[in-house]
């Protein structure tokens, strides 16, 4: 309400779900800063971290309905809904967030995913690869046998195939469960060692580069159409750049978290034996096969999508060595 004059900035609301200090919100604040700077204050972004405007699983629908103009959400937490990005969720062994983010970006671009037809994609990125963090060292897959590990629900099958016992516990119960030993460890990207202080409970890491979680930042279509061309151009120019920035930021953040955990909790890092590393793709093959079967049944070229995802992984892994 009130008078709308040329001097009034265009207000955009941006909903996000994790706590403010985590990387999805840091990238949001960075994006806000860049947009406001590059449009010379023509656009003002209001950010809502921590699910204060929309809860995690309602962000996509909320943006379509217009509750928020922009929203960042994790595609991986809504299985079945974003079939193309699910290829990046597969255990393909992405070495870093930057590589996975760029692969995700290109893959969604190539297949013009129809699940996004109601929105404008502003950027796409992933978290760093998930690794195994435990109370007692895991030096080989044998150590993993029968170990209860907390995972986000979506990736439980991967842990099962590796011999562990996945416990799909909500994030809010995790600290208590780790502290008391209800679970013996957890599998996720490693920034949580510092961000949630999990290094205090699990000071052993086994590098396995299991999976990444995929995120999308989308904008309400009508809102996008209503923007002036120069603003549209600024946002379009930021798309790839933001994906790269976020990937690099969070990769660096993991390194920092590891350094911090080493100093504070004497974090130990282990690698699986070379033989087991080589066997991993074969162990995890059923998951990829199930994905191909599922999306092929839905009328998508499943085989080709996986092939493309792997090719993109190779390409960007070389590029960002």
């Amino acid at each position: 309400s009130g008078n709308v004059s040329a001097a009034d900035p265009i207000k955009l609301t941006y909903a996000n779900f994790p706590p403010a200090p985590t990387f999805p919100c840091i990238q949001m604040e960075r994006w806000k800063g860049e947009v406001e700077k590059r449009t010379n204050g023509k656009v003002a972004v209001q950010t809502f971290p921590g699910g204060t405007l929309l809860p995690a699983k309602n962000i996509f629908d909320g943006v379509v309905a217009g509750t928020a103009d922009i929203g960042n959400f994790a595609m991986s937490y809504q299985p079945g809904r974003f079939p193309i990005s699910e290829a990046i969720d597969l255990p393909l062994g992405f070495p870093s967030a930057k590589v996975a983010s760029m692969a995700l970006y290109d893959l969604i671009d190539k297949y013009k995913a129809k699940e996004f037809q109601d929105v404008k994609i502003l950027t796409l990125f992933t978290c760093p690869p998930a690794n195994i963090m435990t109370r007692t060292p895991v030096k080989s897959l044998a150590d993993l046998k029968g170990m209860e590990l907390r995972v986000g629900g979506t990736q439980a099958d991967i842990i099962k195939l590796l011999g562990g016992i996945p416990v799909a516990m909500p994030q809010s119960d995790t600290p208590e469960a780790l502290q008391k030993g209800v679970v013996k460890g957890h599998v996720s990207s490693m920034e949580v060692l510092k961000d949630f202080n999990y290094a205090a409970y699990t000071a052993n890491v086994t590098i396995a580069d299991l999976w990444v979680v995929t995120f999308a930042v989308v904008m309400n279509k009508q809102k996008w159409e209503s923007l002036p061309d120069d603003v549209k151009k600024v946002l379009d120019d930021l798309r790839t750049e933001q994906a790269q920035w976020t990937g690099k930021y969070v990769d660096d953040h993991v390194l920092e978290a590891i350094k911090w955990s080493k100093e504070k909790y004497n974090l130990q890092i282990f690698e699986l034996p070379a033989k087991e590393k080589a066997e991993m793709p074969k162990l995890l093959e059923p998951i990829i096969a199930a994905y191909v079967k599922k999306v092929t049944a839905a009328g998508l070229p499943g085989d080709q999508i996986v092939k493309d995802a792997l090719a993109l992984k190779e390409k960007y892994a070389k590029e960002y060595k």
Partner: protein
Amino acid sequence: MELLEKLNNFLNKSFLVIGGIAVLALMTLATGNVCLRIFGMPYRGAYELASFLGAVVTAFALGYTQKKKSHIVVDILSATFPDRVKRVLDGVGYLIAMFFFAVISWVILRWGLRIASCGEVSETLKIVFYPFIFCVATGFALLSLTLVIDFLGTFRKKGSQ
């Protein structure tokens, strides 16, 4: 009117039975999972199923809770109003709430249909969960129906006075 009331009572009672079964299932599931975990084989869908059962528990009690007038009214001021004013206010309140929850029921139903059509499944078990969303929509529909009965009831009391 009487027929409507009978239908409403029947529905509230049946929903209460389903809700009761859900609450016992919730207890059994969570306790069972503790036992399974002691033996080193926890059921990984336990958390997810528990949350879906929880939704059924609350949603199916919506009508009954209204029928029992258990929702808390802040009547610090309005308790001092004359009876006739109170009854008019009650009637208006029922009417507003009835309309509101009918809309809510419809919104949740529509959103459930959307989840059904876009193929979203649950995170851990990868099962379709829209039927549970429909349960919540049904619960709100019954709440709305119960409010219709309450609204009509305010007229009856006036007549009998």
